[in-house]
């Protein structure tokens, strides 16, 4: 099959359509990350480096969010890294599902995120699962990075994070990231535990650290509950 034919077959597939629309939707909120990153004190190029190299939205927001709240680089690194642990699980799942040849794994790993995993798992046919992963991963990568640059330049032009309610945008972004994960009683209970822990410890520890304490408490709560209810 020629390259052009392969491309035509891809473009006609349901996985392509889903991947592209997820890419477009994610690209649209790239600017919100760029603007928030710059308003948290990162430079335009640091914001762009995070999108190009870290490339996992939740962790990027966390990194900027911790710094914006006055946290140290160490606290920002910890929060971002813990939040990206789930990508490791996705990698495990994608390897089992897509059976990629070893040479493509380093590239696949970089685009292993919520969106590519979601698009791939939504397909039933193995060929479509691969197409979904690649299409969503690349579409999100390109548009997310473009969006970040635009937003970072915009954020730089705005300057003060309080102007135009950029700090309110950060609150909205975090609850927007959390919301889809609150399905069922357990996640809601865990979210409440984490929120309460944060409120309690904020006055006593440096900025950024409450997030790590909340993460530890939530993990312990899950393990305890797991033991009680196997």
């Amino acid at each position, binding site marked *: 099959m020629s390259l052009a034919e392969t491309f035509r077959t891809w473009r006609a597939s349901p996985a392509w359509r889903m991947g592209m629309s997820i890419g477009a939707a994610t690209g649209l909120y790239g600017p919100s990350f760029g603007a928030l990153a710059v308003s948290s004190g990162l430079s335009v190029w640091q914001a762009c480096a995070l999108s190009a190299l870290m490339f996992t939205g939740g962790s990027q927001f966390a990194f900027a969010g911790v710094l914006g709240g006055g946290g140290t680089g160490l606290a920002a690194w910890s929060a971002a890294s813990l939040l990206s642990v789930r990508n490791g699980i996705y990698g495990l799942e994608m390897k089992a599902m897509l059976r990629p040849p070893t040479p493509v794994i380093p590239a696949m790993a970089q685009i292993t995120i919520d969106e590519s995993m979601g698009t791939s798992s939504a397909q039933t046919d193995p060929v479509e699962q691969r197409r979904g992963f690649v299409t969503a991963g690349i579409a999100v990568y390109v548009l997310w990075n473009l969006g970040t640059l635009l937003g970072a330049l915009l954020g730089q032009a705005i300057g003060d994070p309080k102007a135009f309610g*950029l700090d309110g945008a950060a609150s*909205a972004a975090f609850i927007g990231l959390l919301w889809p994960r609150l399905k069922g009683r357990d996640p809601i209970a865990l979210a409440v535990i984490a929120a309460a822990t944060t409120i309690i410890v904020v006055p006593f520890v440096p*900025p950024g650290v409450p997030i790590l304490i909340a993460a530890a408490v939530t993990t312990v709560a899950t393990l305890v509950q797991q033991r009680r209810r196997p």
Partner: protein
Amino acid sequence: MTMWAWVLVSCATAYAIKLAGYALPKAVLDRPVIHRTASALTVGLLASLVVTNTLTTGQHLVLDSRLLALAVAAVALWRKLPFIIVVILGAVAAALGRLAGLP
């Protein structure tokens, strides 16, 4: 360390975690506790980030226009509006709150 160093170290860590997933044995997937812990960690971190970004300034708990932004965002999410609209509404709510004289 400079901020650039933290940025790059954090990026390297994120990539290492992604890559580690492909290197781990498949048997790890069969243990439900791994899945549960990973998703609990994600929920806990995000919930805590909601609180720190809404209610805190440094080590102080404060009530200001950001709480209004959070409330508006929650309603928008409940109405199933897309993420970008939720973020924009949050910004608008905080800006309007300040215009109305809230801190």
